[in-house]
């Protein structure tokens, strides 16, 4: 137990700026990574709307297809793709930090966790593409 001072001097406290994440590149990179979550929600929403359109019949679905072809949607999805790739890469790269896997007492090197993640990503992507493109 440390004894508290009876005469605390006037310590100066700085307030963290609202735009602290603009102060350095690592912080900005962090906030961009976190903002990728908006892209996640966005495209889940797009998918739900697509399912809804699919549910309501061919005419609705065609209109939905038109909407997807509008320049605004193309731009929005391009941005979303950028953020989702950013999310995927940071997610897989940080995975070894969050998981300390030990085999026979030795910690598995980070690459042994990262590489299978990337392989799984590739396999899942190819599978989805195959199912959608096979005919």
């Amino acid at each position: 137990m440390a004894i508290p001072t009876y005469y605390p001097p006037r310590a100066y406290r700085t307030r963290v700026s609202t735009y602290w994440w603009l102060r350095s590149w690592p912080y900005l990179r962090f906030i961009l990574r976190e903002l990728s979550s908006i892209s996640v929600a966005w495209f889940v929403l797009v998918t739900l709307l697509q399912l809804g359109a699919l549910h309501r019949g061919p005419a609705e679905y065609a209109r939905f297809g038109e909407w997807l072809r509008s320049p605004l949607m193309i731009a929005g999805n391009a941005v979303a793709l950028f953020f989702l790739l950013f999310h995927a890469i940071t997610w897989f790269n940080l995975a070894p930090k969050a998981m300390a896997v030990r085999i026979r007492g030795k910690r598995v090197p980070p690459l042994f966790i990262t590489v299978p993640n990337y392989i799984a990503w590739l396999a899942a992507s190819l599978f989805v593409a195959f199912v959608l493109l096979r005919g």
Partner: protein
Amino acid sequence: MGKRSNEPFLWMLFSVGGTIAALLLPVHVFLFGLAFPLGWLDGPGYEALLALARHPLTRVYLLVFCTLPLFHYAHRFRYTLYDGLQIKHLNELINTFCYGGAIVGTAFAVYLTWSI
């Protein structure tokens, strides 16, 4: 154990959702968001897609795909608002907005994958 926080549960949804989002969302955005609308690749037609969506395995896939990433988003965006804008004091509002959104989306997803 003393005061139990439900953070572990929310964090697990965040983690699983984040992994699913990382594995699957990029290819979906690329195909449905860019490649098919821009004509780079030929996507499945209405009938084919409907048939695919009605396959039991696809239903399960879509359900997972459209729910867990929403909780990933809710968790992450909540903290982004807390820290990025320093509005943690509005946490009740933020939580309602983020998790409420995820729950509504989940309900919508359950309905659609069930009824399609």
